[in-house]
């Protein structure tokens, strides 16, 4: 039992050290400057986009109403869930505390801040889930803290949304291997069973 106590204690100490690094955890989304960047995200075609195949044309530039641009060091472009894709999915919830917020988990690109208009052609990653999305860009300062953002949709996140269909992840080779092993399993069992019944009958007839 002693070794278990030691392991548990050291684990707890390790976690407490990790946890104490959270000095920046009270930064809020509502403190960020809204609409500091004008962002557009144009799908390469109409309808539901296919992950891994279709592209998005993303452009961003400094908005005329921006105030804090002196602090901008880097621009982080992210793919975010629209509210309809967050229903009954608490792991995608929008929270005000930035470290807890799970709205924008998918990174698109990170670039140094440039006053002029920037663009990027993004091919949807193959691990993007099925859902409805928009694009948001965070302006980050030298301390890697977000100071402002801009997004391709309105504040209520209802306009300019696009839908993505994920890849299925299925493969023919997987399917075939699966069937083969399943059949083997059932057959092996039957063979053993029948064999033993036969041997037992032989014993009895002796």
């Amino acid at each position, binding site marked *: *039992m002693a070794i*278990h106590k030691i392991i*548990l204690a050291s*684990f*707890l100490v390790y*976690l*407490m050290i990790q*946890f104490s690094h959270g000095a920046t955890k009270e930064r809020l989304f509502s403190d960020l400057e809204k609409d500091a960047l004008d962002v557009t995200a144009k799908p390469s075609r109409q309808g539901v986009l296919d992950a891994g195949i279709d592209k998005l044309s993303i452009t961003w530039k400094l908005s005329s109403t921006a105030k804090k641009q002196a602090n901008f060091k880097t621009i982080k472009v992210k793919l975010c869930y629209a509210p309809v894709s967050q*229903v*009954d*999915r*608490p*792991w995608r919830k929008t929270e005000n505390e930035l*470290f*807890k917020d799970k709205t924008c988990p998918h990174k698109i690109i990170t670039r140094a801040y440039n006053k002029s208009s920037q663009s990027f052609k993004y091919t949807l990653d*193959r*691990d993007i*889930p*099925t*859902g409805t999305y928009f694009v948001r860009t965070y302006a980050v300062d030298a301390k890697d803290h977000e100071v402002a953002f801009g997004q391709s949709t309105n504040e209520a996140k209802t306009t300019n949304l696009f839908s993505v269909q*994920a*890849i*299925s*992840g*299925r*493969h023919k080779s*997987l*399917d075939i*291997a*699966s*069937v083969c*092993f*399943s*059949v*083997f*399993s*059932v057959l*092996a*069992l039957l063979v*053993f*069973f029948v064999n*033993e*019944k036969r*041997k*037992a*009958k032989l*014993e*009895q007839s002796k």
Partner: protein
Amino acid sequence: MAPNHSNENGSIGSSLHGVTAREQIFCFSVEDGPSSQAIRSDDPTAKFALPVDSEHRAKVFKPLSFAKPHMRAFHLGWISFFTCFISTFAAAPLVPVIRDNLDLTKTDIGNAGVASVSGAIFSRLAMGAVCDLLGARYGTAFSLMLSAPAVFSMSFVADAGSYLAVRFMIGFCLATFVSCQYWTSVMFTGKIIGLVNGCAGGWGDMGGGVTQLLMPMVFHVIKLTGATPFSAWRFAFFIPGFLQIIMGILVLTLGQDLPDGNLSTLQKSGQVSKDKFSKVFWFAVKNYRTWILFVLYGFSMGVELTINNVISGYFYDRFNLTLHTAGIVAASFGMANFFARPFGGYASDVAARLFGMRGRLWTLWILQTVGALFCIWLGRASSLPIAILAMMLFSVGTQAACGALFGVAPFVSRRSLGLISGLTGAGGNFGSGVTQLLFFSSSRFSTAEGLSLMGVMAVVCTIPVAFIHFPQWGSMFLRPSQHEERSKEEHYYGGEWTEEEKSLGLHEGSIKFAENSRSERGRKAVLADIPTPETGSPAHV
């Protein structure tokens, strides 16, 4: 009468080590075979690696040995069960990937979790009967090899419905729990059954913890070979599938149903009589203690199964850990089983030595209630270290309670042992289904609230243990019966057979069991009056 150390229960004549009570002619017997013509030449006790009782069940437990048939059965049993736990909960640590691939909602995930434990309700019931009728080996092998196809079919899953269906079918393999406990119960004697069942059950349950580490690791390795996440998780399921097939083959080739041989061989040669399923079923269902154990196990093992499904996601989402770290934390819950459940069984055995069956019942109540209280604390903990501490204490309490319960279960019935193991085991899954459905399948409660409420429900549902009463041994608060006949173990176990069956001598196994179970009187076992056996079999003089 001073008990000599070679005896089983202090009963007279038990120094006649080697008498199987099948001899018709002689009262005494000696061990060295060739010199005495009186012994049947196939007296098998001399062949066992471990000392055995009159039913050829081992009296000692040597976990590091693989000797035939007892220790081998133990190891095959618990490893099969371990493998099934890995398969059943293999999806849980990968849910963050699966939910993205299949576009699942919280409701879908919760329902699939319920489904994963519901299948076993029926399969555990069926398994009890299968073991009684076909033997533990085939029970285990059927479970492993017929559910392996379900594990492989994760490669076909495309939406919430098929995901739920596959998890439901994989869940059937949890029936190995029953076959494993049945197998150890026929291989090991009553005095150590708490510890043996606790080890077998606990080490098997560890699979629920190991899978939380194993599956993310396998998933990572497969991704390194270039597969996308949405394919990698499907391929990862092949590992539990392979393990199941391998274990199934090992069980069939290396295992043995009973100490004396395989069931079909023994039945055909007339040494073991075939029992009628309807009778076995009736005596299991008629006994109210079965149903109390059903509920109790629902809130010890049931809670444990639920936690296996939700805890990884809970730590991932609430404390923002990575998939890997959440898996480690979740794994420690399941891994505590390694010592916690055997500890519960051992505590039950020690309590029985001192206080008899009453000690076993109190041990069970205390462990389960304490575990449930820590579950309430876990839900309320808002910092990670406190949550982990609460979770570890909760895991020890609940898992030890599972072990303690199976220190009681083998004594509820002899005739329907398999079916009662099955019903109790089914109760575990039923409890898990109920708790997942009530607390973890909708957005009504947050997962944290769900955990605390589940703890409260567990405390309440542990109270029925006070109502388990054995006429020969008493209960938590009542003394044993003073009635001349009812206070004997033979009366309780003999009561499962009709007079007609008794006249045919079919109940002899139960009588032997009754004599061996005198240890449940606690310290009073030494002073117990030994009744003359009703059939006049000359095992004791």
